[in-house]
């Protein structure tokens, strides 16, 4: 276990370092003018020169990079050029929003995958129709799904809100995870309101992931039900349902979990679009604004956080995989 943690920590450092170099280089080869973005179009030449020095943009590129890296070690991600606030402070607001949404996306995706996989293993026309319907939805890009959900569940049925994370924005809690904050402060209505806001964006982002997982899971279940251990279980008078859930599901989980780890990165990317559509005040919305305004510290900050989240997510998936499947060893 110690070896596993050390290896993952090293890979985390390598990923973050590579990301920081990549984003830094990309920003420099682009034609961005952060000082103009920071000061506004009518700034005087004197103000532009002074700000260039203040941000260290007059220094050699390599010095700028190591200044930035030095700041990272002290938790200083720099100052956003467009909002003029420390990036670390901005991310402290955005990260919980995106992580909360991501957690619900994964939750919905896993539930959907298990339910669909169960249905897929059934014979008959209903299974085929359901497979076709979900596959069609999963083929649609997430922005289209999100828009359809808004039109149906918000505009027509008035079931769920269209915008934001919470109705009463004056409240808040210790963690920034609103569902959890409501529970921690004993405010169930707050948690329910947060869930209401979460359902549509989480569903929009989870559908494709869930259907993809379901296919892998269903294949595993089918081959599991035809395997030697299933035959043995049948000979011991176990019911089909028991064989499915006690034996087949567990065995089929390994490839599905591996795939979940891989797809987590894609899921984080799709959240960028979903956050835009639902005005979800998370990393995606922040990133799209930052890119448009050539806000390097903000873009780099989000990239580093998303990189770290991806490495941690895959590590968690590996741990779960080892728990589910004793044949898997953590190395």
């Amino acid at each position, binding site marked *: 276990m110690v070896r596993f943690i050390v290896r993952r920590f090293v890979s985390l450092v390598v990923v973050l370092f590579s990301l920081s170099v990549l984003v830094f280089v990309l920003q420099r080869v682009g034609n*961005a003018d952060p000082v103009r973005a920071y000061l*506004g179009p009518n700034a005087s030449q004197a103000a532009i020169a002074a700000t260039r020095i203040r941000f260290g943009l007059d220094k050699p590129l390599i010095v700028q990079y190591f200044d930035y890296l030095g700041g990272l070690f002290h938790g200083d991600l720099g100052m956003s050029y*467009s*909002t003029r*606030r420390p990036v670390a402070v901005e991310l402290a607001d955005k990260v919980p929003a995106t992580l909360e949404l991501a957690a619900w996306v994964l939750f919905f995706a896993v539930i959907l995958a298990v339910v669909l996989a169960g249905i897929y293993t059934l014979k008959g026309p209903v299974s085929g129709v359901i497979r076709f319907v979900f596959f069609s939805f999963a083929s649609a890009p997430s922005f289209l799904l999100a828009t359809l959900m808004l039109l149906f569940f918000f505009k027509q049925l008035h079931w769920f809100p269209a*915008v934001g994370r919470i109705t009463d*924005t004056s409240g808040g809690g210790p963690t920034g995870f609103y569902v959890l904050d409501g529970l921690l402060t004993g405010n169930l209505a707050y948690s329910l309101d947060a869930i209401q806001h979460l359902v549509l964006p989480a569903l929009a982002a989870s559908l494709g992931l869930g259907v993809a997982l379901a296919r892998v899971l269903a294949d595993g279940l089918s081959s599991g039900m035809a395997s030697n251990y299933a035959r043995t279980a049948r000979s011991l008078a176990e019911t089909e349902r028991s064989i499915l859930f006690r034996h087949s599901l567990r065995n089929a989980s390994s490839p599905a979990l591996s795939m979940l780890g891989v797809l987590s990165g894609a899921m984080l990317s799709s959240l960028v679009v979903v956050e835009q559509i639902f005005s979800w005040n998370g990393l995606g919305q922040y990133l799209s604004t930052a890119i448009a305004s*050539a806000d390097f510290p903000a873009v780099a900050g989000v990239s580093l956080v998303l990189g770290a989240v991806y490495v941690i997510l895959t590590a968690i998936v590996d741990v779960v995989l080892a728990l589910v499947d004793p044949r898997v060893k953590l190395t």
Partner: protein
Amino acid sequence: MPRSQRLLKLIGAAVIATVALAGCATTASGSTSGSKTLHLAYLGDIPAPDPDTAYASPELALVNGAYEGLIAYKSGVPTAQLEPVLATDWKVDSTNTVFTFNLRQGVTFHDGTPFDASAVKASFDRRTAVNQGPAYMVAGVKSVDAPTDHQVVITLKAPNSAFLAYLASPFGPKMMSPTALKAHSANNGTNYFDTHDAGTGAYEFGTFKKGTSYNLTAYPKYWGAAPKYTAIDFTVVSNISTVQLEIEGGQLDGIIGFGDKQALASYKADSTLNTYEFPSLQTPTLFLNPKSKAFTDQATRVSLLSGLDFPSIASKALGTTGKSTTEVFPPTMIDAAGDQQTIAHSASALSTLASGALSGTSLKIGYMAQSPAAQALAENIAAELNTAKISAKTISYPNGTFYSTMADPATAPDMAILSGYPDTAHPDSWARIFYTPGGGLDIFGTDVPGIQAQLDAMLVSGDPAGYSQVAHDVSASGYFYSLATVLGTAVLSKSVTGADKAWNLVVPDLLDLKLLAPKA
């Protein structure tokens, strides 16, 4: 029952219960009609609404709601008129150097500090110290003297006939409480004043949730007529489609400012809404790059501009959100008779160029990515050129790279469109910024001989007649063409009144919030 099966059933039940509970709970819906809180949308998040850094129209709604300057432009009128705000009257000496203001009495800042002459100097000093984009407006101030508590005398280092316009601008210096400035002097209070105000306006900053919502509440001791809405909530919504759904659903009362002509047409069809199109000074301008090989010759530039059918291009590109212009300066800035573009339309000019000076040339037309008006104009110009067999394509540049790309001869396109508006209604604020290399928005750094000297002379004399010569020289150069004027837009529920008197001429998407009222 096996453990895994029980677990699955439990999860299934939890999901169903969660969705059912969430779905059955009442969403925040229902009309806001009759409410004393006005719910408006922000299309995307805003930078900090600090009066000395704010330099885009969305955050100006908050700044100008909570802060006031000595004077302002009168709202809801199509020509610029100065009106008193925290100064009751003023006097300018014959050299445009010494400006004397008598200050309004009985005014308090939101922290309770009485407004007097000391606030003027403190506020000017802060703007200078913060030294962001709008700092140029006070850079020429030599001294701020206070003969009495209710009079200030501002002396400039050099004559400046535009100085009153700076003070009246929505971007202009706002009065801030000296007490608050002293209490939050670290780093000039630039973090504190991102979320707290220290103004005298009809509204105070309420709860700010960065990226989510911004709230203004009525200031109970406001010196003027009490605002009719007790609170104004701005909700950040990322896309115009969702804004439309929220307005239709009654969660929002409207949105001020957006450049989407399709969305506006859709709003117009909704009988529960009022759509507004206000006059403005925003004038999309076509810049021809003097460093482009295609445009080194003035005759080619003029010929290209004369060949394009700009009224048709403006109509197709902007619909009802803008209109074609024949003037060089934004409308009403100077006398229209002396402001006409000198290039007359010639239907055959483009075909002559296609087989002559621009034969085999491929033109690039750049525009800023987040400017729908500039994009639509660029695409229509490219279409007209391509129809005339002059190869042209449009290129979108992100806001953060637009200016630096234009300034770099290696990367700059042959032409570019910038849909800008001046900081003030004074002609110097347009001509100096757009037509002189040091101005900031002369994006290719074009230097038309003699313009700078003419502008400098008129800044001293204040004689408006000289701007006609500037208009003539700019137009004749063939480097610039004013394409259209873009109207300010707003969509508001019919329960909201007063917008027709609240719009701002200088900043297209800014309404004087205290003039809005719920329908009786």
